[in-house]
């Protein structure tokens, strides 16, 4: 095992923006060698070969201005459609979700077109002029609202992560060494969401005090529906959203209206929302009985495990990348459905020694946080891993602890520490611990 004393000292110098971009450029070159199975996000062949400033191409008149900004021809970013654990890059017709390229993104806000996607019967095309939202059940009023009605109500915006409860499901039983961060954890994203506070609609219809659960139903083919527990927390934080990152929702993310419940499993944030029904018990839809429940080792199933627990992973360097000895800036994402991340620790010796990573500000509750740490790799094979802690004191468990509590058949709510091994050649691979 590697001597931890030989690891580079914790960052002495404060990281300045220019410093970050220098590091970014350096690592870009290093990662050129990365031959990921998935999408390789950074193409910088021109940079790598421009050894003298004289070799840098001269300035040229650029392309005309346009109605929309497209990505650079040197950047390729894409999600990966998946049909079941272990079956990725499938025909989109067979896909049930599509994963965000975490290792290719910066900061914490996911671009709108790259937010992960999950649906149960395809993406409907809903005309907002014909869309209606019915609010009924145990309430004083039974109301039909239009999308324009919602847009003329007081609005809130909030930056929050969404995560599929199946995120990380690849690593319950074994670790496929060929997987990237995207393959493993691409079902989490962070957006700014805008819409009407659920509490406003609840007041509008005069929900009965006895109503403790609410059915949220989509206008997709399957009529995807979930029972939402109306706790004080959910009532005060849930949003009936019509915008993402400043633009109207995109069809894949629920256009024209969706529910958004920060901190809870993604399937509760019902897309293409068309009905909210107030009741006094859970409705026991297929998606909270047959699916999104977790089988424990004794065969019994945990139901309504709704909160997304404290989580993190190193996104750079990460699975299928190749690194060289020398300086690296470890970077990653941490998040918790319990609130804000207060600490992320990284270990570059497989969990023997830990030190605090730097958290980029602002760190927002129930949003992803970006962490980074310096690392001088001496070329010895090792393992790197991160572990996060949230404001309620939850610490991200080791895989052994998680499996010890839940077994390996739970399918959902995998939040164990992610370990990447680095071999003598600098190949970074997914391993269990």
């Amino acid at each position: 095992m590697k001597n931890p004393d030989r690891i580079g000292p914790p960052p002495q110098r404060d990281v300045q923006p220019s410093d970050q971009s220098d590091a970014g450029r350096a690592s870009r070159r290093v990662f050129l060698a990365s031959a990921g199975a998935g999408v390789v996000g950074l193409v910088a062949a021109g940079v790598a070969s421009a050894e003298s400033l004289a070799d840098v191409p001269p300035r040229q008149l650029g392309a005309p201005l346009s109605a929309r900004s497209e990505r650079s021809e040197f950047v390729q970013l894409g999600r990966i459609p998946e049909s079941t654990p272990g079956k990725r890059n499938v025909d989109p017709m067979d896909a049930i979700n599509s994963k965000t390229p975490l290792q290719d993104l910066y900061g914490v806000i996911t671009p709108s077109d790259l937010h992960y996607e999950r649906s149960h019967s395809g993406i409907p095309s809903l005309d907002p002029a014909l869309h209606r939202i019915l609010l009924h059940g145990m309430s004083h009023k039974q109301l039909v609202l239009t999308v324009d009605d919602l847009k003329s109500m007081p609005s809130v915006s909030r930056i929050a992560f969404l995560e599929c409860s199946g995120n990380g499901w690849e690593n319950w039983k074994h670790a496929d060494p060929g997987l990237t961060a995207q393959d493993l954890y691409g079902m989490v994203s962070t957006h700014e969401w805008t819409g009407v506070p659920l509490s406003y609609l609840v007041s509008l219809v005069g929900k009965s005090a006895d109503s403790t659960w609410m059915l949220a139903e989509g206008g997709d083919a399957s009529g995807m529906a979930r029972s939402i527990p109306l706790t004080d927390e959910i009532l005060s934080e849930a949003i009936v959203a019509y915008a993402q990152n400043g633009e109207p929702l995109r069809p894949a993310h629920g256009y024209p209206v969706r529910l958004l419940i920060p901190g809870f499993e993604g399937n509760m944030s019902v897309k293409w929302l068309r009905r909210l029904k107030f009741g006094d018990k859970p409705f026991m839809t297929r998606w909270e009985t047959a699916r999104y429940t977790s089988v424990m080792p004794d065969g019994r199933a945990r139901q309504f495990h709704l909160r997304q627990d404290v989580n993190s992973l190193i996104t750079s360097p990460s699975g299928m990348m190749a690194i060289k000895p020398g300086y690296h800036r470890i970077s990653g994402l941490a998040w918790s459905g319990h609130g804000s991340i207060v600490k992320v620790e990284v270990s570059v010796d497989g969990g023997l020694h830990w030190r605090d990573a730097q958290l980029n500000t602002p760190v927002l509750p129930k949003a992803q946080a970006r962490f980074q740490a310096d690392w001088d790799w001496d070329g010895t094979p090792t393992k790197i891993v991160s572990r996060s802690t949230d404001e309620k004191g939850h610490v991200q468990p080791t895989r052994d602890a998680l499996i010890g509590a839940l077994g390996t058949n739970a399918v959902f709510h995998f939040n164990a520490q992610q370990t990447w091994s680095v071999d003598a050649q600098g190949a970074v691979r997914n391993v269990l611990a």
Partner: protein
Amino acid sequence: MRKEPFAMFSRNRCLIALAWLALATSAAVAHDFGRTATAEEIRLWDIDVRPDGAGLPQGSGTVARGRQLFNMTCFACHGENGVGGIRDRLVGGIGSLASENPVRTVGSYWPYATTLFDYIRRAMPYFAPGSLSDDDTYALSAYILALNGIVAADAQLDRTSLLKLKMPNRDGFFTDPEFAALKWPQ
């Protein structure tokens, strides 16, 4: 309580919002948005069926009729007898939940027969959801339950008989501690 910051809205809306913030009552704003839903239109959309039978319609269907329908409209995806299709397996797996590879089906896993009726009527067949009559939904539910040995091969299912069924895994679930204090179906 309500402390969300509000970004932009007109003066009237602002006053309304302030009234709402101050009073936190529905009356202050209710007249302003939307319209009252009529009973008939609510019936069109109010499709959920709950474990206590709420929402379960009149009508009935036999296993035999269900088999006929299944072989016409379901078997292409779910396979003959609900096994071996290209989509979800609907039959078998009883006794497998504590094994290395649990097989979760209507028979081995689903806690409520009402959920089966609800799901088939709302979501199946995959390409034409909402196209099944209540009678046909009872028949298909009866057939899938018969394939799983939960009702007899000559059974007929209606509201009363479906509600009497106890699914094999009915007691196989426990509630996450965080939400156990909220109300539950018995």
